[in-house]
């Protein structure tokens, strides 16, 4: 039946349904991904951020919240310049992490 309107899907993250198996496999090779404190240094120093919204912080958070598609889309705008790796206070090799994320999410 057509009511003339439709309900948009909920944007809430339901942690009960988030499938983290790929994230867990990624974290096995990139254990440092768990150390992120969401300080935003990577995004603030990223030359692509202003144009495309590229942000390692958001990518990490996205994977942890099961938003894999959005992350994959965002990562395509990274230039792999490595600036973010230089500023991360947790010493995460973010450039290496980005490469690993790309590899993992392409494999599937």
């Amino acid at each position, binding site marked *: 039946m057509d009511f003339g309107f439709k309900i948009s899907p909920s944007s809430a993250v339901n942690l009960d349904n988030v499938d983290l198996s790929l994230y867990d496999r990624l974290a096995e090779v990139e254990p440092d991904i768990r150390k992120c404190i969401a*300080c*935003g240094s990577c995004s603030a120093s990223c030359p692509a951020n*202003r144009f495309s919204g590229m942000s390692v912080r958001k990518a990490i958070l996205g994977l942890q919240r099961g938003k894999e598609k959005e992350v994959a889309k965002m990562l395509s705008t990274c230039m792999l310049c490595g600036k973010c790796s230089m500023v991360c206070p947790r010493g995460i090799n973010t450039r290496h992490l980005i490469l690993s994320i790309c590899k993992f999410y392409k494999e599937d």
Partner: protein
Amino acid sequence: MKDNILIIGGGIAGLEAASQLLKLGYNPIIVEKSDHLGGHVADWNRLFPDMTPAEEVVSRLVAETSEANIFLNTEISFVNKLKDSYNIMLSNGISVITGTLLFATGFSMFDASKKEEYGYGIYNQVMTNRDLEHWFNTGKDARIPEEGPAAMGFVHCVGSRDEKARNPQCSKVCCITAVKQAIEMKQKFPEAMIYCFYMDLRMFGKKYEDFYISAQRDYGIRFIRGRVSEVSENIEGKLIVKAEDTLSGKPVKVTLDLLVLMAGIVCNPDTCKTAGLISLPVDSDGFLKSRDNIADITESPKEGIFYAGACTGPKTVPETLAEARSAALEIHNYISRKK
């Protein structure tokens, strides 16, 4: 004869311990490498949480220790271990024999010029928390314009919680110090726009949360959750500060007249040197290692050697004083047990 107790460091920890040991009937000897007593607190202006003048705290302690032997501008040159005591040679040529040593060597401030991206020592309007306390005390600092800054910022966690600076620890007192200093600046310059750039606000202590609420509600301090990524200067000589506002997920840029870096608390390298003379262990955070971090924080793993204050990690003034009293009591128990 009264027992000698050698106290290394004449900051508030060393002074408070000496004052208690005098009352317990001992002969404390303070060795202080600088030319004044009081350590870092002697450089501060007003202390959180009650805005007590720092000078009051220091002068009370100095008065209470007037009976103690105090050597200024003096360090430990070398230490000989005797059968059950130490023979300690001071840099002024005096030697002391004692069975009991108290480390009250405190901390060092992180050298903010090491974080080049923040421009300390490069741009004229960048100062540290310590510089600002100094200005509160003396009113002298060319970096602060007479009419006050139109806009200024505080950068939290400078050289703390930072693997790149090789100091992953939280310095504990700088969040509350930033908020305290922000309020003090707003009191002096009500027109100024003041920002705090933080990663987490660690308001753990008595009345700290009240400072935070008051900073927001009464003083309109603006809190931005994001770590400053870089500071640069524009043609007019103003500072451009960049960060990500992680709450909106957008990059932020702001033009400031003054930036205060909250330099962290790190282990004092002189402490490590002196501790090395008697092979005292250092903990994984770089500070002196206690026998037990819960039950025996004021005891070293070596017999007769005790700790008080910030030499074992970042501490507030009341925590330091409480520890110094506790160390004095431990020393008293130790000496009584030996007799």
